[in-house]
């Protein structure tokens, strides 16, 4: 990895702005992760951008219904590169406990996912572990954007 790549990776991880994609209960745990006790602001990620144009990271937090799937894809498409996706919780990763016709069985059927965070819902520590694992992978050069 060249120095420019290392510097770019370092700066990308240190201020990775998440896009608000809290769909269901996992969103509450995501809010808790951003709140005071488990603080996301210490990683530069306290601003959850409402507009995908200003976001780097899409944390899909919750059940993705079949109706929401095209919206999710459009929002993902409208994020500028480089972008990463964390699938938070069981429902976003595999469909969770809802093995039915209404929900997409895993958001990786729609968008490419980098990190899967298991849990129903994953506690703030788990989500933070997922985010920090993503940071480590970017810094090590395993995920090239």
């Amino acid at each position, binding site marked *: 990895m060249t120095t*420019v790549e290392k510097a*770019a990776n370092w700066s990308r991880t240190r201020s990775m702005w998440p896009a608000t994609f809290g769909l269901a209960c996992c969103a509450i745990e995501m809010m808790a992760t951003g709140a005071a006790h488990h603080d996301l602001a210490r990683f530069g990620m306290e601003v959850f951008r409402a*507009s*995908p*144009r200003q976001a780097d990271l899409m944390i899909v937090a919750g059940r993705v219904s079949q109706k929401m799937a*095209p*919206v*999710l894809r*459009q*929002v993902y*498409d*409208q*994020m*500028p*590169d*480089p972008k990463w996706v964390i699938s938070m919780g069981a429902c976003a990763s595999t469909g969770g406990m809802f093995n039915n016709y209404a929900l997409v069985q895993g958001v990786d059927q729609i968008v490419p996912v980098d990190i899967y965070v298991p849990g129903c819902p994953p506690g703030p520590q788990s989500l933070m572990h997922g985010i920090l694992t993503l940071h480590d992978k970017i810094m090590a050069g395993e995920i090239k*954007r």
Partner: protein
Amino acid sequence: MLLLAGLFVFVSLVMSKMVSPDRPTPEKLDPYECGIVPEVEAIQRFPVKFYLVAMLFVIFDVEIIFLFAWASIWTALGWYGVAAMLIFTFFVMETLMYVWKRGALDWNVKRRARYVSQETSEAA
């Protein structure tokens, strides 16, 4: 300090342009509409009353600026200032009356009698 400012500009503009990936896709270039695919073009015809309201605002805002200037030293200007300001305000109020009766301030009026001058009605 100047070096720091220059370095900041260089890093944030030039360096980010060099390092950032540029991969435009048609979906990415669509206007953002909360995730739905845009159906209607953004720029459409809009009612001309918005333009009228903006233009009238500019005119009356200039009047207000003059009133502010007078109001800040009105005690020093005395009755002469009051009289001069009243005459100025009267002329602007005449404009307001004309605009009012002409219907430029109406917003959602179903039907109103159109203003027809003497000459055209005689011609008709």
